[in-house]
């Protein structure tokens, strides 16, 4: 199969970082107050992801294994800073809206996760397209979440008034925005619904086709072991020890979230 195309499709649908892998939730919740912010954040992340994947893949035989994490962080941080300058210079309104979340792309686990699990093991061209696919998948999800939140919370889509607003003073009937959806709590509720829906989708997909979706790779999958940093994270053993401890004592109600994703 055509490798670049396959990588694009993989990122957009099969391993969509937000909906399937559930990675990078901090920016997902923080900037999706409007569709345009979600789109801007998604595209900035895509640029960083594609370029850093390409660079890390080119350097994969040079970077010594033991210092690979700091090396990746340096590469990613450089690209993030470059993107930050470009956005600041050419799209200042987006820079104001996203603010501190642009430099925070550095710690977005999608980027280091892809570097570790794909770019460090594959040639440059597929890595570039892997980054592009993942980034575009991220962009689409962010835009969709942004559209939903903006529509419910303000009755607009991309700043166009779709639902005519009610005006009680003028006695005009119309839509009263549920502004909680563009405030912080709304983000949590949207995420909760997303998690629940994806859980059902996973289940019914498994029952129908017998095929499993890629497991959630973040804490939202309730298992630290699938985290992309697991290999280099010494906290993992700590958590495992704690887990064993809690399992020995009393054995509380088991979490069910990881069941169908763990094999």
């Amino acid at each position: 199969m055509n490798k670049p195309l396959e990588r694009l499709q993989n990122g957009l649908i099969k391993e969509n970082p937000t909906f399937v892998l559930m990675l990078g939730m901090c920016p997902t919740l923080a900037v999706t107050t409007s569709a345009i912010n979600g789109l801007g954040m998604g595209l900035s992340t895509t640029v960083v992801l594609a370029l850093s994947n390409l660079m890390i893949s080119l350097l994969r035989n040079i970077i010594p294994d033991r210092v690979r994490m700091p090396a990746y962080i340096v590469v990613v941080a450089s690209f993030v800073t470059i993107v930050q300058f470009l956005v600041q210079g050419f799209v200042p309104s987006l820079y104001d809206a996203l603010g501190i979340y642009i430099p925070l792309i550095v710690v977005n686990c999608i980027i280091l996760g892809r570097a570790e699990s794909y770019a460090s093991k594959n040639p440059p061209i597929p890595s570039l397209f892997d980054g592009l696919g993942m980034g575009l998948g991220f962009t689409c999800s962010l835009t969709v979440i942004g559209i939903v939140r903006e529509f419910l919370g303000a009755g607009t889509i991309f700043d166009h008034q779709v639902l005519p607003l009610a005006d009680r003073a003028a006695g005009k009937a119309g839509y009263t925005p549920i502004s909680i959806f563009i405030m912080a709590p709304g983000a949590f509720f949207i995420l909760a619904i997303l998690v629940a829906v994806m859980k059902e989708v996973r289940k019914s997909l498994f029952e129908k086709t017998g095929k499993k979706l890629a497991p959630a790779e973040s804490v939202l999958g309730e298992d630290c072991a699938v985290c992309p940093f697991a290999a280099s994270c010494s906290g993992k053993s700590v958590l495992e020890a704690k887990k064993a401890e809690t399992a020995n004592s009393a054995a509380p109600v088991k979490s069910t979230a990881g069941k169908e994703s763990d094999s």
Partner: protein
Amino acid sequence: MFVKLLLLFISASLVNNVVLSRFLGLCPFLGVSKKVETAAGMGGAIIFVITLSSLVTGLIYKFILVPSGFTYLQTIVFILVIAAMVQFLEMFLKKNVHALYESLGVYLPLITTNCAVLGVALDNVQKDYDILTGVIYGFGTACGFAVSIILLASIREKMEYNDIPEAFQGTGIVVVTAGLMAIAFCGFAGVI
């Protein structure tokens, strides 16, 4: 001056709560909040690291990056400094202050790539805080994190006995809980 710092502390910890209204540090918030004991350990470690890192990054920014004109390297420098600092802190505690290591140190490696730590360092630069204000801001932010993760863990311990719709079991209900907590924290906006 004192009143100003106190207000900043309240605003950083409660009004603009780092997880519940700014979504920084969501991963440990959802991941390490199953038991109050571990949540408290995580909260303590975060307070320790963020307070220290706002001091260190503040000093580096003011006395190294600004005079040399390398301010554009801030993201790179901050994240490397934070990672290195956490690593050293862990080694230091393990060797010298074993009691503290037992209670807090084990959580340190989990914090290295936590966005709340980098977020506070960048915030301090963006908002032009001097070193003292920056440290208070960091301390306040971290306290806000500790309060909310401990609250969430206490709720989760109680929730284990509840009958929850199947689709929401596990992460789903935790996120709903976080959303309800966020609504409650919105109420703090009236405090200042």
